[in-house]
């Protein structure tokens, strides 16, 4: 099974565009792997990375917009999948790093081992990929370059990845540099 940092490193090597990352360890790991002006680190407001990503995607149709979500986060905002499915932005790619747990709060189960989020993705009009190995991830990231969204890539990852460092940039600065990056 992939580890979270490895998955994020492979994703970053293969994509180019704004990233909206879920709160908790996911944003911290993204920040540690590669800090970019075009990363929007969502610090609080658990669940809303997919909604923020939808808003960005609708207003930046010339860019591919990437959401780096977690299983706990998406289960908290399942309604966003219906809104994304209905509005169907072609430039939206939704990664879900699924470790079947709330890792940031001590590894409590999310139950995504029993309810398959990728199935919910399918019925809400996403094109869905489920990944369990590094090679599969690299292959899918190349494949989706010419595909239209919304695309969901659910990646099964192991629990207890190395925690990234805390984000040291002030929230207002995260906002300003992200907004500015969208103008390019």
């Amino acid at each position: 099974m992939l580890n979270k940092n490895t998955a994020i490193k492979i994703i970053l090597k293969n994509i180019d565009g704004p990233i909206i990352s879920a709160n908790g360890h996911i944003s911290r790991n993204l920040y540690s792997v590669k800090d970019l002006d075009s990363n929007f680190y969502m610090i609080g407001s658990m669940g809303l990375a997919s909604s923020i990503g939808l808003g960005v995607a609708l207003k930046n149709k010339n860019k591919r917009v990437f959401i780096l979500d977690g299983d706990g986060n998406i289960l908290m905002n399942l309604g966003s999948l219906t809104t994304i499915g209905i509005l169907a932005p072609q430039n939206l790619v939704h990664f879900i790093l699924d470790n079947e747990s709330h890792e940031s709060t001590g590894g409590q189960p999310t139950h995504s081992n029993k309810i398959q989020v990728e199935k919910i993705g399918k019925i809400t009009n996403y094109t869905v990929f489920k990944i369990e190995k590094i090679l599969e991830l690299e292959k899918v990231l190349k494949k989706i370059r010419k595909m239209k969204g919304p695309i969901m890539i659910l990646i099964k990852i192991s629990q207890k990845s190395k925690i990234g460092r805390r984000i040291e940039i002030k929230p207002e600065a995260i906002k300003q540099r992200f907004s500015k990056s969208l103008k390019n």
Partner: protein
Amino acid sequence: MKNENQKWMCDFLLENGIENLVGVPDSTLKHFIAEGSKLKKNIIATREEEAIGIGTGMTLSNSPTIIYMQNAGFANSISTITSLVKLYSIPLLFVIGWRGYLKNDAPEHELVGKIQPKLLKLINLESRVVTDTNWKNNSKWALNKIQQQIPCALIVRRMNVE
């Protein structure tokens, strides 16, 4: 607020910088929302926090956005307003229907209606109550606030209960 004033307020805001409406429907704001839909500027979200998320993404993309909801939904959104809107200073313009303003409103609105002004103050979200006579001035006030990157709210009271 009268039907036509709701419509005109929506037109006025859209003519003066607002580009999108995102929210959860409220009967108090029925004609305001209908105008946004008619002009194809409206997205209906599944819940208020989701609407705030979408509006945040739009605002980060330099596209000013109104988030509309009923005050019950505002109470739902407190954590998102504190940990996203206020934390990052996202200049969203909230339009909130105030149920429970009248004493004879439906029982589920009574307590939340009573604490509505206090909730706004506690989370330090600047607001104005709009009426049939002051809606234009208060809309200008709100547009000015979001231009200064300050989120704010316009409150529409429920004046009749069916």
